[in-house]
């Protein structure tokens, strides 16, 4: 199934801010992160500092993904 991945800041500079990624059914954000971290060193460095959001809501790393979900890897925020 296909999901959309959103990236920000330095990670978007490396990988682009929006990727379409093919994953196995019932993959989790953790699986997706592992897959992408194998391809992008900067994302791998972010590792455990990062939170995940699914369809604009913070989510758990073990949530099963659905076809078409938008998964965002959220580095520590720095607004304000």
């Amino acid at each position, binding site marked *: 199934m296909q999901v959309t991945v959103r990236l*920000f800041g330095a990670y978007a500079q490396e990988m682009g801010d929006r990727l379409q990624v093919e994953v196995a059914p019932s993959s989790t954000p953790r699986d997706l992160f592992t897959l992408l971290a194998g391809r992008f060193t900067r994302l791998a460095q972010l590792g455990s500092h990062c939170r995940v959001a699914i369809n604009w809501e913070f989510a758990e790393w073990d949530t099963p993904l659905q076809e078409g979900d938008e998964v965002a890897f959220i*580095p520590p925020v*720095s607004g*304000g």
Partner: protein
Amino acid sequence: MIALTREPIDVEAVRRAVEAPEHGGIVLFLGEVRNHAWGRAVHALEYEAYEPMALCQMERLAQEARERWNAKVAFVHRLGRLEIGEVAVAIAVGTPHRAEAFECARWLIETLKQEVPIWKREFTEEGAYWVEGEGGQADDAP
């Protein structure tokens, strides 16, 4: 009024948005671009947001503020490039009594800094880098 904007923030409009006859106090917090960070001179900032999620989170914080403090809330964050002294975030809170307005405004800015997906990139003499959380940084990709 809950918004992200690429234009200069109209601070007076943010304040007016929380006026109400039953309010005895309005607290207006302005976050401005500072010319230094972690010992380095900063020339300018750039803000980026995960816009739809940032707006959802800001709406959620405003809703919680209304319920907890009986407050009227206006909340605007600027995006794009900002120069020193420009307003990056404006938060106005109106409540019947002043104590709640101070407390609520403080809670809103502190929670924004933890929970709303907005990031700043600092331009310094040593180059530009993305700020991560309080004090972390990720250098620009080569």
